[in-house]
């Protein structure tokens, strides 16, 4: 039986620990720097400065969220095990599943704070430069959040299977290929080969398809995206995250902490 209270306690102190560390501020400053660049870039743009503002803003938001997910995700369990701080926690009446859920929730809290701050700044620049309200921007911000959660879960899983450096490299590789796979699947070279299509479909089924979270083209070119597509992305992120969580919990429960 999972105790929600224990998960919340662990997440609260994980959040507190990360917020007190100076590393997070470096990433936040990087994000803020990108927002400033956005502001400067839109000032020099002729035609549609608000498009540049939102493109840069969402890019900064996505980049900093992924950086936080990768950097802290790689350390989330590895550091606990290597520094043996985990012994001080799981020697209490706390299950390993509660521990990992609490740690992940704490880091999701950090992502929420990062996205809230940077999204507010990006939107401010966007509205100042004459942008109009578009609900898709809200969806895109939410999808960046969901994408960062998937990245966080992917790197947490990989960190249980391999070392820190490799888990970072594999996650970056999966992130890039998770976007590229969509482009590749529409190439005529692929369309003319059934086996290649099947291989790409299998990749898309098993490995994370990050392209699904990208609505920027629809926002920039003001094209419409159906509610069904948004619901499909929501369902995808939910099911994929749940599957990753179950695998992480299974592996972590059986991990020897020596």
């Amino acid at each position, binding site marked *: 039986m999972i*105790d929600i209270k*224990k998960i919340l*306690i*662990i997440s609260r*102190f994980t959040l*507190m*620990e990360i917020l*007190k*560390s100076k590393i997070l501020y470096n990433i936040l400053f990087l994000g803020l720097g990108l927002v400033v660049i956005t502001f400067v870039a839109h000032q020099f743009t002729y035609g549609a400065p608000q498009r540049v503002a939102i493109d840069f803003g969402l890019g900064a938001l996505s980049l900093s969220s992924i950086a936080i997910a990768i950097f802290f995700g790689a350390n989330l369990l590895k550091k606990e095990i290597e*520094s*043996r*701080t985990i*012994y*001080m*926690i*799981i*020697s*209490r*009446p*706390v*299950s390993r599943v509660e521990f990992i859920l609490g740690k992940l929730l704490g880091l999701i809290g950090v992502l929420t704070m990062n996205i809230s701050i940077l999204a507010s700044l990006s939107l401010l620049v966007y509205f100042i430069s004459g942008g109009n309200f578009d609900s898709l921007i809200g969806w895109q911000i939410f999808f960046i959040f969901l994408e960062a959660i998937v990245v966080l879960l992917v790197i947490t899983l990989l960190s249980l299977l391999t070392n820190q450096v490799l888990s970072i490299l594999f996650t970056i590789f999966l992130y890039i290929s998770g976007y590229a796979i969509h482009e590749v699947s529409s190439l005529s070279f692929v369309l003319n080969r059934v086996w290649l299509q099947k291989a790409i479909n299998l990749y898309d089924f098993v490995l994370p398809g990050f392209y699904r979270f990208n609505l920027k083209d629809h926002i920039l070119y003001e094209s419409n995206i159906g509610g069904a597509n948004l619901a499909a992305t929501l369902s995808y992120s939910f099911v994929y995250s749940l599957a990753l969580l179950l695998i992480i919990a299974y592996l972590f429960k059986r991990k*020897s*902490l*020596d």
Partner: protein
Amino acid sequence: MLKFNNITKVFDTDIFTKSFTALEKVSFEVEKNTVVGFLGANGAGKTSSLKIAMEFIPPSKGEVEYIGLGSTRKEIFSKVGYLPERPYFYPSLTGREFCLYVGSLCDVPSKILKEVILKWAPKFRIDFALDRQIRNYSKGMLQRLGFLSTIIHDPELIILDEPLSGVDPLGRKELKDIIVEIHQQGKTVFFSSHIISDVEDICEKVIFLKEGKLHYEGKVDMIINKNLKPFSTIRYMRNDQVESIEVKDSEKQATIKELIEHNVNIISVNQHKPTLEEIFYKTKNDDRY
């Protein structure tokens, strides 16, 4: 209260290196309301045993039983306090935050936690540093904070892995006094150490591991009495000078009588009592204790 039943632990490394047996058929029991010392040289298997007891690593064979502490893991572990060897903490948290963290995980209300901290922190001489970030703590302070966080939920069984390492002599004395005080409150303390004199000072029972095997389990007094040597030292005063002689027990009475007849002032007569260290390490080639 804690029972090891035929625990074997084999560490498999990789296909190119031979597997390593850390523990072999180890069985012992820690009885309720006792202070039990867990002895053995470095690499004897003490820490592996404690990690198995805390379910950090699984045993290859055998099982660990907690008697009278509950039926589920959560029930049992809410009554167990564990301090790992060289405890590590979250460096950005303060000592107080860490205590509140681990205490709340044991379902202790924050009001009671604050009272416990108020009561025990001065005894551990850590009260002055509780609001500092842990990254600024010295080695001894970390050990004291670890000790405080171990007993913060008033556990029935306290398991300590090398609790006195990294602490100065005065600190060792203080921590040993605290272990005795905790025991007097009806708690069971099981602690590992490779420093035998620490165990001898405060333990009633000792469990001795050697190369992953159990070599002795029993009362400290019993093993010392069993290893008493048939010699006594007689100290006496002659010509304003203290002198001593070592005599066989069979000759003790006659020697004392002779000294008295010569008007010698006898100060003390002590039977030679070996220390645990002498018994365990100086006779290391002899497995008969």
